């Protein structure tokens, strides 16, 4: 099997300061990763076809965008459009809505496809994909996944975005009719803007303990090594590193 149909899921982003609609950068990276694999992609958005954010994706290389409505279950309506696709590319986290990063996982479970997250580079080899995956602390991992698959592109993926106005004019957007299905969501309520409160264990103290806590300062420092010569002190440091498995010699 070779890569023929690639679908990219794009959401609508917004400017964090002005709130103006624009492309979601991470989704554009996914789009560009897809364009580097095959020249013609299916680009899919669940939402409103009039959304000005979609114009950005046309300029960034999508020749055509299919829009499905969201009055039902979003995963359901997207999955209906994604039968017989070899590869589904998504961003890591949307900027509008729940932003839970769950959509690709729900979709993969619904379509029963394998999923690889944190993709920085994708190359095809036969009916497999080789993916360079992001790990923290400067580590990267190469993994192989069988096609068809869902791949979540990492925000640090090294591809160049290129905005061409002519493509925006030439591209077109198709709105699809609604499919009816049940909504299955956590009922979120928007709260007043405030700082989140950290969870702390309630401390039950006697009067004496509270007095002592107020008049003595808690000594939080660690071990202090004053004695010994340089070599002994160096040994102490090495032992500390070994004990916490920070070095392996």
């Amino acid at each position: 099997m070779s890569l023929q149909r690639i679908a990219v899921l794009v959401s609508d982003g917004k400017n964090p300061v002005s709130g103006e609609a624009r492309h979601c950068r991470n989704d554009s990276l996914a789009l560009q990763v897809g364009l580097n694999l095959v020249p013609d992609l299916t680009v899919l958005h669940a939402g409103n076809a009039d959304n000005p954010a979609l114009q950005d994706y046309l300029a960034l290389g999508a020749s055509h965008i299919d829009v499905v409505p969201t009055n039902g279950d979003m995963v359901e309506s997207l999955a209906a459009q994604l039968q017989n696709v070899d590869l589904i590319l998504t961003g890591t986290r949307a900027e509008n809505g729940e932003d839970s990063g769950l959509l690709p996982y729900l979709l993969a479970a619904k379509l029963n496809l394998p999923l690889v997250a944190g993709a920085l580079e994708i190359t095809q080899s036969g009916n497999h994909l080789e993916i360079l995956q992001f790990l923290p602390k400067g580590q990267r991992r190469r993994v192989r996944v069988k096609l068809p698959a869902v791949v979540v592109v990492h925000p640090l993926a090294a591809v160049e975005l290129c905005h061409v106005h002519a493509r925006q004019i030439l591209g077109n957007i198709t709105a699809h009719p609604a499919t009816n299905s049940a909504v299955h969501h956590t009922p979120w309520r928007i709260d007043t803007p405030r700082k989140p409160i950290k969870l702390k264990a309630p401390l039950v103290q006697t009067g004496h303990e509270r007095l002592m806590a107020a008049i003595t300062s808690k000594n939080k420092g660690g071990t202090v090594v004053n004695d010994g010569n340089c070599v002994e002190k160096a040994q102490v440091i090495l032992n500390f590193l070994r004990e916490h498995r920070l070095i392996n010699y």
Partner: protein
Amino acid sequence: MSRVNPMRPQQTTSSGLKRMVLQANVKPEEAHAPKPIRSPAKPKTRVLVIAHSDRGALDDHARQALAAAAILADAETTVTVLVLGELHENLSSAGADEVMVLPELDFQQFQPDVELASLLAVIKSMQPMRIFMPDNLIGDGDLGRRLIAHSQLTTATQVVEIDTKHVASYQAGCSVLAVCNLPEIVLLAANAVDTDLPFSAKATHVDAVELNHASGEYQDLGLQTSSAAEIALEEADFIVSAGNGVQNLSTLETLALQLDAAIGASRVVVDDGKLPRDKQIGATGKTVSATSYLAIGISGAVQHLQGIKDCRHVIAINRDSSAPIIKRADLSVIGDAEDIMQALIGEIAKAKGANA
């Protein structure tokens, strides 16, 4: 502000006056009375905490998820922690009543199918009422989302606020704070919970379940670790940092090379032009989150400490035992920076030679 202890050491002078003894070696506080044990004697329900370990230990973020479970648990709820990867530490002070370890599921190995299947097996046998996981990038965020997609449970991701009734998380491009009732699967963002617990727990060892087999859809082709010099300071795992007390930067560079560590600096060193601006760590420089931070000849001004608040193990080398960095450091070695660096370089070479 901490007040002066009226009971601090004092002498009575020949004229009968009481005089405080300044700078006296204050005895280390008597060992604290052991904390009460929280573990329920007759458990009725159970909550499950799932996290990958890193080098045999749970990191801060994972401990926060464990602390959240322990704080929210009532007197009849057992907190069971499922550690994916090896575990070489005791989790009783972290609040774990029961510990199950699956050492084969190390985060460096990519095997999401095996992990998910094993997790579902554990959940099936334990029937937890709620599941807590750290929403991190070493695999728990990924595994948690796979679990959510394969279950019909209520969920919340990137939780920044939690209590007995509700959780909150940022949505719509971090522009609003949304709340919902405490769900069954909670993926916690970092620093939403204080890990200081007034109790400890039994941390009983529970036998591991049998691992499930891989589905053959995924294959791990191995890790690529780039040398510390190539990666950005923010991503570095080991940082050797130079302060005003370092006379000889070339010694420090040799040391960093030997430890495969990235090089950082305090503002004074950067202002002096000894290292480029992008090496500066602190309030007006970079905020780093290395596992090990070796501060050499750094006094530890608040502006500098701000930049290293997420570092796990801080080691200080300083001439002055009253420098503020000593209070922050987990290990402080008092002495001349140059001498100790030289000794360290020698010892590392010896240790590496003995191993090779």
